[in-house]
């Protein structure tokens, strides 16, 4: 499986290199946003402003927001493109099976995106002389939230595989994401609080808000909850995707667009 992740990583980097304008565009956007954050332009972080006013909180919040958006849509856009271009069935001929190949592809893309963000961040820190006091512990709820985001990504990937054209739905889903990342479920009582535990991404995002915006200590129980939530969504997402693969093969819909 590691060799599939490695080759997907290589393919991802090659694709970036082949379209330098696309890569430069991405670099410029990320640089401008981070630079804006450094200058104190909180609004530029969008939903990340919910994570508190401190620079480190804004940066972590922004990274969660962009990576979650990426995690949710990347697989579906990839599947739609491959179905259109006629490479999808070759990927499905892999003995590793589509779920594992696309999981490897997701891990590789995440590493590339994360690498992109970190490099720009460190370059800006170096150039501006700014300092970030990361709560290193913030990495864990961030990872838990991303697991859930990838789970939802696989569920949307299942729809993309079966229906082939779900662009409008994917665009609409950004607002659902905004609701999941921004709503402070952890401050609500009753059903709202329960929803904060059961919905995807929300326990991890809530814990991040606690750590970064409210300065709460790292709570092992909360993290366990966020991790279980993330893992359950990832497993359910993989199951739904595998079921969609089976259904698509039964109905002969794999190659059609």
């Amino acid at each position, binding site marked *: 499986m590691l060799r599939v992740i490695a080759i997907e990583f*290589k393919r991802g980097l090659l694709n970036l290199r082949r379209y330098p304008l696309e890569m430069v565009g991405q670099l410029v956007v990320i640089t401008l946003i981070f630079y804006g954050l450094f200058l104190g332009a909180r609004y530029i972080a969008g939903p990340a402003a919910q994570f508190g006013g401190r620079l480190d909180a804004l940066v972590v919040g922004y990274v969660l927001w962009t990576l979650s958006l990426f995690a949710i849509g990347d697989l579906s856009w990839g599947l739609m493109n491959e179905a259109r271009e006629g490479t999808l069935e070759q990927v499905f001929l892999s003995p590793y099976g589509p779920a594992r190949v696309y999981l490897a592809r997701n891990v590789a893309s995440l590493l590339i995106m994360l690498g992109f963000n970190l490099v720009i961040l460190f370059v800006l820190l170096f150039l501006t002389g700014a300092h970030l006091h990361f709560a290193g512990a913030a990495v864990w709820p961030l990872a838990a939230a991303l697991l859930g985001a990838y789970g939802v990504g696989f569920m949307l990937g299942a729809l993309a595989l079966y229906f082939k054209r779900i662009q409008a739905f994917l665009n609409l889903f950004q607002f659902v994401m905004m609701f999941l990342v921004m709503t402070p479920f952890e401050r609500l009582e009753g059903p709202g609080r329960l929803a904060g535990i059961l919905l995807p991404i929300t326990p991890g995002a809530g814990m991040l808000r606690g750590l970064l915006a409210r300065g709460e200590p790292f709570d092992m129980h909360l993290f366990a909850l966020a991790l279980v939530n993330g893992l359950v969504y990832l497993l359910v997402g993989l199951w739904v995707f595998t079921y969609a693969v089976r259904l698509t093969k039964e109905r002969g819909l794999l190659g059609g667009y």
Partner: protein
Amino acid sequence: MAVLRAENLHKTFRSRGRAVQAVSGVSLRVEMGEVLAFLGPNGAGKTTTIKMVAGLVRPDRGLVRIEERDPHRDPWTLRRLGAVLEGNRNVYWRLTPLENLEYFGVLRGLTAGAARRRGELLLRRFDLDHKKNVLTQQLSRGMQQKLAIAVSLVHEPALLLLDEPTLGLDVEAAETVKQIVRELAAEGQAIVLTTHHLDVAQQLSERVAIIREGRIVAKDRTKTLLARFSGEQYEIEVAAELDEPRRRRLAGLGAEVTDGHVVYVGDPEGLWQVLEVLRPLPILRVEKDRADLTEVFLKLVREEADA
């Protein structure tokens, strides 16, 4: 052991309350080093059958075995299968040929190093090594198709499925692909070939299966099928005028004489009698009417349609 054994495959697709039976009771068998031409008109069920063999479409009934393993239950069976699918790019246009070979090699279970080494070998063999670092989208259609075949072979599969491999190629590129198929079969590769170019099928295949409306209407060795559909008609060209007594004797044997040609319909025994009548006239040519695969195909497909 057969490399491919597909038995009694059935597939019905349902769309908006309507059921369309795409494949009904199809069985195929391919041995090592054998090319099976799988022919049929558009919409006959060829591609559905190919995809059922490749594990991309799940059959409603029937079984598929590649080296006695089921690709629908055991995904590692796909390690023994390579496919070039019609209407697909099959390879990434944003990658170079060598990168495609390395990527798909790893996806088929090789290590990156082994995939690269095997890729280099295949590029040399398919005369693509000078293009190994050029983007695939910049290659000619023929080169892209050769690359797709190379990619399908990178993991050394036992069974190769080629769905319309010469479609859209110019004459030279089609000839190259035909040569590749010939060489692969000679090396022991089992190949299922679907094509609308019946001359290609006739030149390359040991056996033929013809499908129409989801059912196999003929399945035999290519030579046997051609012989079966070839008439018992002989044409003899004579380099002299035939005199009246010869004409009468030939008519008695059932032969017709037209413009220096004698046409005889009958068994080989009768042919010798005709030749005896013609002795000692100089004979330029004796030819038995031989059907080609196009005639056989059209005859079978039309017969079935009329039935």
